């Protein structure tokens, strides 16, 4: 019963946020800057939640998430620019973007996922840089360093509903997966891959599965990005972007979907909220990051988390 309570709470929150944002946009109480951040917030939530699956549940550090996002963005942008009516082009672009990213995730994942820990992190980082260089070089298709221009602005805040629903789909899929046979296998690999193999879990299959699914979702987020910003440059998808997403996952508490959502929303809005501080903005941003990190490991927070464990321990004795 407790489980259903959580689900209902999630539904109510999702609807409330949707109503609040739509109302705020229509009544014109939001500044232009804030309105322009609505879609990036959704997009970053998609990215953070999908990366959460790799880092939090599979337990592998991937620093190439921006690369999957970029593949989706370019593939989606090309579909959007093909001249199809938006109604058809947008869903098609999202699916194409996701699929392209997933295929690349598979190609990269099969060899790379034999590695673990630091080695995997470095390899995914290198992979991201390679993809960036390829986009820079493939001028006829991608426009090279000059960028892929004049992408129809189909995922701006005016089209909030579509983006919001897409984001909810990503969240629901990832939360569903965690509570399933496949999710348990993925978490088991994280906790102890030797024991996972010993109980009959095909480790490389499930590692690849998590990686490919995350790539698919990152690809969809990339399409949202393309339709929002209107121009794609390879430089927008460097390792800084990957690390920004990773920071959201880490701050959200690895393996915590709700935490990732909150951290992604906060970190996207924060630079804008701190605009009043002008020159000190990035300084305060850094301090807030450190403060959040400290809080997530503070005695207070740990006490709250340990409380449940303590109660369990009492019962055993």
């Amino acid at each position, binding site marked *: 019963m407790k489980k259903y309570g959580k689900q209902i709470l999630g539904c109510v929150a999702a609807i409330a946020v949707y109503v609040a944002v739509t109302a705020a946009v229509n009544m014109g109480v939001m500044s232009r800057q804030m309105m322009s951040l609505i879609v990036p917030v959704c997009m970053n939530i998609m990215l953070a939640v999908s990366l959460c699956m790799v880092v939090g549940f599979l337990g592998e550090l991937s620093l190439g998430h921006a690369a999957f996002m970029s593949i989706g963005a370019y593939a989606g942008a090309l579909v959007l620019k093909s001249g199809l009516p938006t109604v058809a082009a947008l869903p098609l672009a999202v699916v194409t973007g996701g699929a392209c990213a997933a295929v690349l995730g598979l190609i990269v994942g099969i060899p790379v996922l034999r590695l673990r820990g630091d080695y995997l992190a470095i390899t995914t980082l290198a992979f991201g840089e390679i993809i960036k260089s390829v986009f820079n070089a493939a001028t006829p298709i991608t426009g090279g360093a000059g960028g892929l221009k004049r992408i129809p602005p189909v995922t701006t805040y005016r089209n909030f509903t579509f983006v919001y629903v897409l984001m909810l789909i990503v969240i629901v*899929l990832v939360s569903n*997966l965690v509570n*399933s046979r496949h999710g348990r296998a993925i978490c*088991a690999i994280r906790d102890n891959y030797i*024991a996972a*193999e*010993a*109980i009959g879990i095909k480790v490389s299959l499930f590692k690849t599965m998590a990686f490919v699914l995350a790539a698919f979702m990152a690809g969809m987020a990339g399409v949202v990005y393309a339709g929002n910003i209107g121009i794609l440059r390879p430089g927008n998808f460097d390792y800084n972007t990957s690390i920004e997403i990773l920071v959201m996952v880490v701050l959200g508490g690895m393996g915590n979907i709700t935490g990732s959502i909150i951290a992604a929303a906060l970190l996207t809005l924060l630079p804008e909220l701190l605009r009043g501080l002008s020159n000190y903005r990035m300084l305060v941003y850094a301090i807030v990051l450190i403060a959040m990190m400290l809080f997530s490991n503070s005695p207070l927070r740990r006490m709250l988390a340990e409380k449940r464990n303590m109660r*369990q321990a009492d019962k*055993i004795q």
Partner: protein
Amino acid sequence: MALLDVKNLGISFGGLRAVDGLNMTIEQGALVGLIGPNGAGKTTVFNLLTGVYRPTDGTILLDGEELIGKSPSQICQTGVARTFQNIRLFSQMSVLDNVKAALHNQVKYGLQGSLFHTPGYRKKEKAIDERAREVLRVFELEQFADYKASNLPYGKQRKLEIARALATEPKLLLLDEPAAGMNPQETAELMATIEFIRNQFHVTILLIEHDMKLVAGICEYLYVLNFGTELANGLPEEVLNDPEVITAYLGE
């Protein structure tokens, strides 16, 4: 025909011959002990049987099926499950989820079920939940189902590991030092549990153990390893009184 038939099993790590020319036959339903001093190669034998290491030579037949060349997950599906000397639980997962994870190949459904929580998923998950709780009940762990595995006391973690191994419905269960770190009372309980699961689940058991009271108490047959080779085998009372075995354990 014997359930497990090991012939001339051997593995070299570089110049080190960790296991050499091991022959072993275990009958269906038997409870066999594998003993030997530290570093004799007992755990290596387990790792060979479960596919963690690939032997340099020899054959391993389970129910007539060759195990060499199979991956650990395939060997588990063939019917060999194990526990580890240093407990390897899924520490961040709940006690219940540890067992549910082990039902991975027992109750199956596709990825679409996992992603969309289809009616099929609900039905299968219900079956998984019931089976997992049943296994926990046997080990008297049911009231701890929602606890994080790492929060269990040591003795119960050992029990959970055995429960998880049994959930895969093995023909052969390998227990690597199940009584390590247990006090005499816990060891006695463990002996009763092993006897019980053997009768309840009709499983054949091979165990590594240093606690001779446990070994003499429940094993029907013993294999003794020393420096990777078989030193002796036979009934417990014969083997444990064998001067060669005593020398290997205690020195001259």
